[in-house]
């Protein structure tokens, strides 16, 4: 009787531990090198920024900022090899600052449709603002 009570306690503890593990939220993404965008950004939000803000706003494709893997045409999204990627980070910081400082946007986030200033405001489909071709 005493033995079964002991096993009961162990089993109960096991359930608590398992439940605890299950309660730990799964990571929202597997991104390895986010420095400006939130580290817990969802794949949907990140994809929307990449497609709607960067790709359409600058008229570029993924390879404009992301370097290819060494032995294939696949893109290595974590790599910082291309300088354009660091420039993109600076541009994001600048955009957030401008929105906060001059447009009174509190807690601005890249990709938020309520931003007063976004990539398209200046780039208008060009990789560099002011380019005409």
């Amino acid at each position, binding site marked *: 009787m005493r033995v079964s009570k002991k096993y009961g306690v162990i089993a109960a503890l096991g359930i608590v531990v398992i439940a605890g593990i299950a309660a730990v939220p799964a990571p929202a993404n597997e991104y390895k090198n986010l420095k400006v965008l939130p580290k817990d950004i969802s*794949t*949907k939000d*990140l*994809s*929307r920024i*990449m*497609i*709607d803000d960067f*790709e*359409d706003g*600058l*008229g*570029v*494709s*993924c*390879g*404009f900022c992301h370097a*290819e893997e060494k032995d*294939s*045409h*696949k893109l290595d999204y974590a790599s910082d090899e291309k300088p354009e990627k660091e420039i993109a980070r600076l541009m994001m910081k600048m955009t957030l600052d401008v929105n906060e*400082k*001059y*447009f*009174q946007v509190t807690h601005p986030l890249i990709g938020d449709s309520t931003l*007063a200033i976004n990539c398209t405001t200046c780039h*208008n*489909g*060009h990789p560099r603002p002011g*380019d*005409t*071709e």
Partner: protein
Amino acid sequence: MKNENFISVDKNDDGIDRAGFLKCMAWAGTGLFCMMSGGVMKSYGMSQLIDKNIGLLKKGLTLPKADFTFAQISDSHIGFNKPANPDVVGTLQAAIGKINAMPVAPSFILHTGDLSHLAQADEFDTLDQEMKSAKTGKIFYVPGEHDVLNDNGKQYLQRYGKDTKGDGWYSFDYNGVHFIGLVNVVNTSEGGLGVLGNEQLEWLQKDVKGLSSSTPIVVFAHIPLWAVYPQWGWGTRDSEQALSYLKRFGSVSVLNGHIHQTLQKVEGNITFHTATSTAFPQPQPGTAPAAGPMKVPAEQLRTLLGVTSVDYVEHNHTLAVTDTPLVIANK
């Protein structure tokens, strides 16, 4: 106290009235209706065939006889919600409505990619749900680059890749015609050009090796397999090698999407077609700084979605984007 550093009013007057936009978008959602006859493919824009007021084939038009028919739709971008089209589900429904209004149900539908905008599960779910209402035997898919975001196409393959090879390429035969679905979006290279890759090219070579040269071939893939406008990534880096395997065949039709507009080109035995999007227009090659969703005044949208030819049909009884004029009944 007024702070001169703050801009208190931020106007974005783009001149688009939502009600008017949606009214014009009733014209959108075009697709391509293809007829195979004696191994030759003839294609018709569905906006030109269907009377939008009655939802049936336009009065006085009769389709030529065909061995079988199929439809192509493309670039549905479910999940897109920008001003270029805030109702992409509605325009997909319009495309399906046109397919369902055809006097003969197509044997199958080819969807040439960009089913979703951001490769999200809910976007694929919506697409699947809407496509269920299409009156057809089967729907074949190839992915667009939007369908393989984040995971290099894992989710796409789980949903649509049954019985396919590699990243989702495959072939099938229907009524003596050999159909080949290729994937050129998983390894898109710098500049956005599509890439087929060595593994798929080797498979293609083997796939057609045993076919007689008289076998009609239909190839479908998302990014054009001809150099439409490489500056915008509208082409496929290694498409020439793929097409070299098809040169010995008497009739080859290549169907693509990606550029959201109808273009055709004939090169030797190969006819290239690109389809309009069911979601939003893109600029003509070289007429804008870059490719991308084109926001236009509502009154221009109809023209940019390729419906100008509706008038052309009414006045001339022929089809602007067709290979063959329609037969006029009871004349």
